[in-house]
């Protein structure tokens, strides 16, 4: 409340000051000394890209602060004005929280060119023993290769944390697959499972997404499921199983959006115009993640390197 008030006062003061300035520049940057708070999450691409955006703003003369936050609660904080900008909002895992926050006053600052996908995923060596595993029917045919002591004779699917809003047990039922979906508590657990299996060339099928650092470290492919349509979830007749709803996969091209506090436009007009133009492609995001995950740079260093490599892209945002 207090901060909002302070900002409001500040923005009024700056607009008055601007009105008084005779040589009417477009805008004197920065319009406010208050820091622009950029959200940071705990996955690589987001950390690099948030630094890239932050650096662009500080070079324009803005005070920038980074605050780490959780992927779900961040949107409420942005709606409240506690934080101001999020560079990566994923359709697959954040859609409902994002949309709820937009209702509460958060601003949808547009989508990136990049598309996202979250789906079952196998390392490529699996294809040696189960050549058709790139689609769900082929995978299901060799379900027993993925069995563990607890799930035997069914195969084991290592699923995402239960609160990521994906009910794979239901999908397994709807598609009548011979798999049992287990949930991990945290993404790191997925990767530990993957690393251990990968080193031993043990068959494994697990939840993964793109863009993600995993693709730069492990060779593998997504398993294709029936492309979803709205009817998949309402009409039992739709899809491979005529008797069940939910017999389809996740969208292969989900959106990746930016989220912003509604006050940015008034408080830092110039910054707002830049942020609206910020746009990443899949290749650019993968390159950013690669520098950290494979080359071992810190996110800050990667951001600088990325900016050097993509100077023309950034120039396009700033104009």
């Amino acid at each position, binding site marked *: 409340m207090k901060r909002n008030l302070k900002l409001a006062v500040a923005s009024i003061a700056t607009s008055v000051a601007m009105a008084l300035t005779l040589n009417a520049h477009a805008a004197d940057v920065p319009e406010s000394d208050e820091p622009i708070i950029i959200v940071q999450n705990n996955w690589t691409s987001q950390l690099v890209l948030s630094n890239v955006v932050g650096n662009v703003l500080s070079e324009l003369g803005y005070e920038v602060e980074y605050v780490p936050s959780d992927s779900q609660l961040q949107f409420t904080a942005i709606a409240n004005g506690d934080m101001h900008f999020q560079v990566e909002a994923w359709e697959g895992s954040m859609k409902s929280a994002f949309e709820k926050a937009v209702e509460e006053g958060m601003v949808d600052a547009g989508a990136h060119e990049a598309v996202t996908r979250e789906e079952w995923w196998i390392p490529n060596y699996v294809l040696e023993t189960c050549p058709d595993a790139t689609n769900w029917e082929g995978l299901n045919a060799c379900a027993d290769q993925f069995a*563990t002591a607890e799930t035997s004779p069914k195969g084991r699917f290592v699923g995402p944390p239960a609160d990521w809003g994906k009910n794979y047990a239901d999908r397994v039922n709807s598609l009548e697959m011979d798999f049992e979906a287990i949930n991990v508590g945290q993404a790191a657990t997925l990767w530990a499972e993957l690393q*251990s299996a990968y080193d031993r060339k043990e068959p494994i099928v697990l939840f993964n997404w793109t863009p993600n650092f995993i693709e730069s470290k492990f060779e593998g492919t997504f398993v294709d499921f029936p492309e979803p349509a709205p009817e998949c979830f309402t009409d039992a007749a739709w899809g491979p199983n005529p008797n069940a709803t939910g017999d389809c996969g996740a969208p292969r091209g989900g959106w990746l959006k930016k989220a912003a506090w509604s006050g940015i436009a008034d408080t830092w007009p110039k910054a707002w115009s830049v942020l609206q133009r910020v746009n990443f492609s899949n290749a650019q995001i993968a390159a950013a993640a690669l520098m950290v995950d494979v080359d071992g740079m810190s996110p800050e260093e990667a951001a600088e390197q990325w900016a050097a490599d993509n100077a023309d892209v950034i120039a396009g945002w700033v104009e």
Partner: protein
Amino acid sequence: MDIAHTTDEARPWSGRALLALPLWQFFVVIAGGILLTTLWEGFARWPDDLVIPMKEWITRFFEWLGKEAAIGSYSFKDFTRAISDLLSYPLEWTEALLYRGIKPLGLPPIPWVAVVLGTAILGHWIGGWRLALFVGASMLYLSIFGLWKDSMRTLSIVLVAVPIAAAIGLFLGIRVTRSKRAAAIITPMFDLMQATPHMAYLVPVVVLFGFGQVPAMLATVIFAMPPMARCAILGIQTVPQDVIESGRMSGCTPRQLLWKVQLPTSKKTLMLGLNQVVMQTLAMVVIASLVGASGLGQKLLFSLQQLRLGAAVEQGLAIVLIAVVLDRLTQAYAYRETIHYSATTSFFQRHKHLLLFLFILIVTFIAANFHKELAILPKKMTFTLGREIDFAVREFSKNAYDYIGPVRDFITVSILLPIRDFYLWLPWPVLVGCIAVAGYRLGGFPVMTLTASLMLAIMLFGFWEPAMLTIYLVFSAVVICILIGVPIGVLASRSERIAKVTMTICDTLQTFPSFIYLIPVIMLFKVGDLSNIIAILAYATVPAVRYTYLGLKRVPEVLKEAAIANGCTPRQKFWKVEMPFAIPEIMLGVNQTIMMALAMTAITALIGSRDLGQEIYRALPTADTGRGLLAGLGIAAIGIIADRLISAWATKKKKNLGIE
């Protein structure tokens, strides 16, 4: 019953009293409970629609508190913001000094060289050369492993949170010693707080204060404060009567008595409290990063996320080293004897440490302007073993898996899963009934009422299944902890050398961020109950070791000599004299083991399970306060039930043995 009583009297230390309990009461409860399930489904599994919606009420209450609650024109939100603002000032200043620099004045932060040397000088002032060398080297590690900035971020939170937690703890402790009413409210609150996993506090903090450095610090303060209060109470209450009376006879007002007599006299206990606060604060570093604390904890979680175990180990070690440095410094300060200078000692002699530090500070500040390496070590010059550690762990898991895999499968399928199914099948009247009977037998009516009603509450609020899974995991782990821990404790009590090594390992295990264990455990044991149990073991075996060691160490020499004089073989001496004497102490260790294991379930939730720990962990990102708090209290309730039953038993034994 009479028979049971006489055996009890005849061999009070035999530990067989439990076996001699009239088992028929348990049989009645078990048979009755199972019979009830045939009458009504609800006796097997409490129907969902009869669950009291306490979760929703609490969540809504906190939402209301965070959004709407107001007194007059001041909303509760204004209040929480005011606290945040208040806390952010000292934090910002410390951060400016340690790593941000004071921008408006164009001043850089204190150069790392000055911090390292400064810590060493402080170490020398407090504890001499050895301490100086140790703390200096530890701080040097932070710099040459490239962890300086993150360490300073973490240190900033610690340096601000510790005095605040200590001050609040001291204040509350003083209140407790001065007012019976305050004691009646505060003491049980602390007990409850101690039994509740830290993660559960985070949820309301997030709802009311949001994410970021300040809320994380606040959560840390809440969590680290009780030990200070406990020590303050202990310290004030154990000031010798003579000293207090001499203070009063000198004409002290109550205030003078407190500040000039009671508090300075209990300095050692208070410093111990401060030490505890420091350790707890550092134990919170990683957990606090879940609500937005930046620094080592955040970087550590990020490293784990990226599967860079080596980096996580280095960051974890940094946390441990900061903890150990602060621990050694505070402890050395507590036991430091004030030295008296003679009147002829010069000003320079008296303040040589301070002057030397100021000199270094100024020199490095100036030098850092020309040589940037002195301000912060550039990445080129830092050092890491991260990849090597990663490689070693991967190689190990790759090679060990062939041996571990079959064992894991056997234990999981043949032992753990049947036990789990049993717990999940167990009708609630049977379990509640058995707890009630045990409570009554061991501690009479009050213990029975408390324990049974806590268990009932867990069910009525809709946490039966997660609670059962928690009990299953925790008690399976505790059994193994005892099987491993007690023999190690026994071994340690036989030889000073083994004891020293064991205790060092115990200390390290307890300070090392437990998150790190999870990754190798998952690599070796896969996601599953056994991984949960093994991760719990790594942490919760420590008290079993420690208390066994202490219990055996405390057996009076005379008793052992008497045993030898009576012609006991070493084996007889151990089983017939030492062990029975140490059993009550060992049971307290078991008690602690259970507490630790319960606390660990909130962390092993990251592996994946469906227990109460998972409920807490899930509540955090969704800001589901009711779920998180109640699940936390559920864990506390299980802890309290176990504690009351075991303590009642141990008290009985101790009385029989004539200890206290």
